[in-house]
């Protein structure tokens, strides 16, 4: 996969602390990395290292305590139109009272688009995730994997240039997970999106990405950034049989394992961000 034209996203010395004084939780200490246009970057780290917080800062949902996120050189202060976020809790991020179609349509309603254009976008997005036949279903009538496909379709319909994904496949079974990973690789080609993908699954991070950003435990820093030069298209069987895959996987695994032997009390649980925030 060619790494296209220059940086789109730059995370500069990003830090985030919850609370103040004695009770302050130093979630992220100092995280810096850049994402090239068209690149697939996976962010992995030990559990509780603030991956979700990091992604919410990148997506403009949380303001970083220090440092900044630059999107094509411009500071991100609120959710940019160029980005779409796919959450882990697909079941909770879909509207149970709306059909699959209307869920995918939600982010398009306020965009200045012709009605036919909206329709086309929703149709294309549903086709890309293989849910065309289910557009009139309610999300809860579908399996977990299919619900996550709806969430992905909704993100695609929004036409982002950058897709942020927060452990999107953490709560589906292994078989479905493999299918969804391949689906993401496929839509990345089809829609030419840049993807930042947070996961705690080391195999997944190596299998999907061009680069893996390995984080330390909280207060979080970047431990190492690893180039993944596995050939595309990737395949659940042949790619994972490659010696390079095993090597990279082992390398990332060691980095994270070394993190996790640190005293348990340091592995702070990820605090719940204030949910009442509105933009």
């Amino acid at each position, binding site marked *: 996969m060619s790494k296209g034209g220059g940086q789109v996203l730059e995370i500069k010395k990003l830090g985030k602390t919850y609370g103040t004084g004695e009770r302050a939780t130093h979630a992220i200490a100092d995280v810096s990395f850049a994402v090239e246009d068209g690149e697939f970057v996976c962010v992995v780290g030990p559990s509780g290292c603030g991956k979700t917080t990091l992604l919410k800062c990148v*997506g*403009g*949902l949380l303001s970083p305590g220090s440092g900044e996120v630059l999107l094509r050189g411009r500071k991100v202060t609120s*959710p940019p*139109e160029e*980005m*779409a*976020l796919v*959450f882990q*809790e697909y079941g*909770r*991020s879909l*509207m*149970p*009272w*709306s059909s699959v179609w209307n869920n995918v349509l*939600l*982010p398009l*309603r*306020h965009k200045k688009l012709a009605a036919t254009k909206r329709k086309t976008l929703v149709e294309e997005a549903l086709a890309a995730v293989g849910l065309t036949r289910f557009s009139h279903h*309610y999300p*809860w*009538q579908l399996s977990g994997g299919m619900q996550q496909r709806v969430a992905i379709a*909704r993100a695609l319909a*929004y036409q982002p240039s950058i897709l942020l994904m927060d452990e999107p496949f953490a709560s589906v079974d292994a078989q479905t997970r493999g299918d969804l990973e391949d689906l993401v690789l496929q839509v990345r080609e089809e829609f030419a999106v840049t993807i930042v993908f947070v996961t705690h699954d080391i195999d997944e991070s190596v299998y999907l990405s061009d680069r893996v950003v390995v984080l330390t435990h909280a207060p979080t820093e970047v431990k190492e950034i690893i180039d993944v030069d596995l050939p595309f298209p990737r395949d659940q069987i042949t790619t994972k049989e490659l010696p390079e895959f095993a090597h990279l996987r082992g390398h990332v695994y060691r980095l994270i394992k070394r993190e996790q032997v640190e005293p348990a009390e340091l592995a702070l649980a990820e605090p719940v961000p204030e*949910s*009442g*925030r*509105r*933009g």
Partner: protein
Amino acid sequence: MSKGAYRTAAIAAEIAVPIAILAAWQAWTAQAHDPKFPRLSTILVEFRELWLFSQFELHVVPSLTRIALGFGIALLVGVAIGIPLGLSRWGRILAMPHIEWWRAMPPPALLPISIVLLHSIGNRQKVSFIAFFCLFPILLNTIDGVRGIDPALMETARSYGVGRLERIGRIVFPAALPQIFAGMRTSLSLAVIMMVLTEYFSSTSGVGYVLLISKNTFQLAPMWAAIVLIGVLGYLLNVLLVLIEHRVLAWHRGWRAAAAQ
């Protein structure tokens, strides 16, 4: 038992038991000859005379209109205030003590002052009174419903740049709707109570007024007929609301069933 047979049996039982009770009442009143308890057949004849023909427009229509207006106003105001209060912590801090205070007020205590303040013993006073006491269950349930919205849903909408008003219309309101309906069910039965209360206290028309006049003139059959009508009205209004809820919240039952699996 097959599903169809089960349904038929359930409906039959639902109908059979009240019929048995009514038959027993008729049998007992027929032999008791107690003027306080007229025969059921007498009450039903009175009921037909009074409510289905001559007095329908004069007394039933005004009562139903008052319920509809009072309940409708309570619904609109309750949701319109409940949504912002559900979204705003400071709003709740400021408003909740007042809401709790008025909610704890027994309605009859406010009946005299409502007449004085509104200079009215007509529809204005009755509709306002019904609306006021129907407001609280709807308001409190709306606030609860809004507060219970999954933050993930709001955050998703925000990340897609969905504006505040659209978030309220497309997410907050539908998400709170099951709770709003719970409040509406409570309020609707309150509306019937308040209707009778205001009409019984001061009125020139309505079912409650007929109840009062019959009492004052010792006409026990019309009094019983009024009581029967009030019961029937309350029951039918609730059935109507449940039918609407069943339709509007079909998604909610499906979703809950799916989540329970």
